[in-house]
């Protein structure tokens, strides 16, 4: 069931499996994500969505299976290498650096592009005139401000990340991920804990990011958001894919409705 227009496939997953003891968190998952799409990944709690993100970013090693990103097999052991290749993510349980400011947080995301070599980073840190920032540093600041303005956080750039309200912390996570200049962005429940106004703003932001040409995989429980902006939806249950298609097809799929039965979710 490979897509015929394979040249437009951004990410291709083949037989991806992850076991925890005897429990299959993810079982023989096959999935293609089209370039420039917003591809939603939904399913009840424990369906394997976050595990999937952890395998994609290398936080956890996969047991078997192949990840092909932009035509290249991704097998780097370390997450930072995959980030350099263009895969970025946000976390379901927000993981910001509590003592860094908003601005510094975004600049952490920029670090891997500005200083891919540790030795050059050391040189940039030390071999400069005293009491002056390096050219690279100033460029990073300019880019960070641009990104913060894009997400409406520019006014808070000198606040501590941990002092932001919840919704803005989520936005900051998004800013930090975007700062790594990804081609594939994995969003893990970005709307969790957001009020309706913030969610509709997030809706616009995600669409704008997609329009920049960044492919997005969206894990989300807010079905209004998912069905509104996704180009494609994959439904997982107990680590297995049970349905895939356009939002419309998914909403009418009896298998999906059954998987969600008993859960308070309006499809």
């Amino acid at each position, binding site marked *: 069931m490979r897509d015929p227009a394979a040249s437009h496939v951004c990410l291709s997953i083949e037989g991806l499996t992850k076991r925890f003891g005897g429990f299959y968190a993810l079982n023989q998952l096959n999935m293609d994500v089209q370039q420039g799409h917003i591809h939603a990944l939904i399913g009840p709690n424990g369906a394997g969505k976050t595990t999937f993100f952890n395998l994609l970013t290398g936080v956890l090693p996969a047991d078997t299976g192949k990840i092909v990103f932009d035509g290249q097999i991704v097998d780097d052991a370390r997450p930072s290498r995959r*980030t350099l290749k263009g895969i970025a993510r946000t976390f379901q349980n927000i993981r910001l650096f509590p003592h860094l400011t908003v601005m510094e947080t975004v600049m952490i*995301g920029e670090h891997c592009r500005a200083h891919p070599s540790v030795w050059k980073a050391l040189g940039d840190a*030390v071999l400069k005139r005293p009491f002056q920032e390096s050219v690279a540093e100033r460029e990073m600041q300019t880019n960070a401000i641009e990104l913060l303005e894009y997400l409406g956080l520019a006014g808070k750039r000198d606040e501590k990340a941990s002092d932001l309200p919840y919704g803005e912390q989520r936005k900051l996570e998004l800013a930090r991920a975007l700062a790594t200049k990804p081609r594939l962005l994995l969003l893990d429940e970005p709307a969790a804990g957001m009020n309706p106004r913030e969610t509709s703003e997030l809706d616009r932001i995600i669409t704008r990011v997609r329009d920049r040409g960044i492919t997005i995989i969206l894990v989300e429980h807010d079905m209004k958001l998912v069905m509104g902006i996704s180009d494609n939806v994959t439904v997982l249950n107990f680590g297995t894919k049970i349905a895939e298609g356009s939002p419309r097809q998914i909403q009418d799929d009896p298998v999906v409705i059954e998987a969600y039965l008993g859960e308070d979710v309006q499809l």
Partner: protein
Amino acid sequence: MFDGLLDGYTRSLLIFAGIHMIAAYSFYLPYKTGQVSLGQAGFMAIGAYASAILTQKFGIPFAAALIVGGIAAGIIGIAIGFPALRIKGIYLLLLTLGFSEIVSVVALSWEYVGGAQGFRQISFNPFTLEYVIVIIAVLLFFFARLERSSLGRAMDSIHQDETAAEVMGIDVVRIKLLAFGLGAGIAGLAGALYAHHATFMDSTTFNIMLSVEILVFVVVGGGSTYWGPAFGAVVLNAIPEFLRALREWLELIPVAWTNFYPVNRVYDFLHGFLDFENAKRLIAYGVILILMMIFRPDGLLTRDSLRRLRLPRWKSRHA
């Protein structure tokens, strides 16, 4: 350079405080990436023995031996840094502690460096204070730059959330190794300076208590800013001297004023208390650590207190 200004005692005091300060920075650098080492005395020993072998057995000038001592400690540091990458917290403490013990056992059993007799008659370096001052100046410059650089920020992020930093593309492995290796190298410099000032050392010179002291300097001074280690080393080296001075003032009180009950008891107690030998210093460190953990867990100097003091910590252009 300071011959006319300083008597021998003060000079020696400044040298030891300076060596402690350098050692405190050797702890601070890996700590900046979240690695807590109890083996810094071991790295000092490597630098001390390597440099002393070079000057004593091969007649190499001290300046060259100092550099080689630092590099040797740095290389061993990177070797220790690899297993240190995989473990955290208490296990890393045990690993570095074990390393330090191994160094000490090797020093004890290796006859070439004196074995149980100790390494004797190391050539005395008359310019230790000058070396110490130059190295501290270089370290302060280095850390001031690091603090406001992308690499320094990356180190902070690793300290705060290693996984998140790695996923954001920070090369956690290399940066942690770099910090551990450079930290070990700095410790090696401190050790080499010590060896050529004291002119004698044995397997107990660089012991676990020294590693603990180094940790205490940073914890007391403050581990979240580069001024902390220097401040901690200065304060903790000054306290015994301060108490010694108090004791001397106490002795100025005429005997007739104190030589009756119960004042004589109080006087004797104070007199004994201020007699600040080594064992008491270690007890005092323990007490200070406990008090610090209760009242100022981030150390005396923190980023916030520096901001209030307006010490050099230049701001971003866009502020």
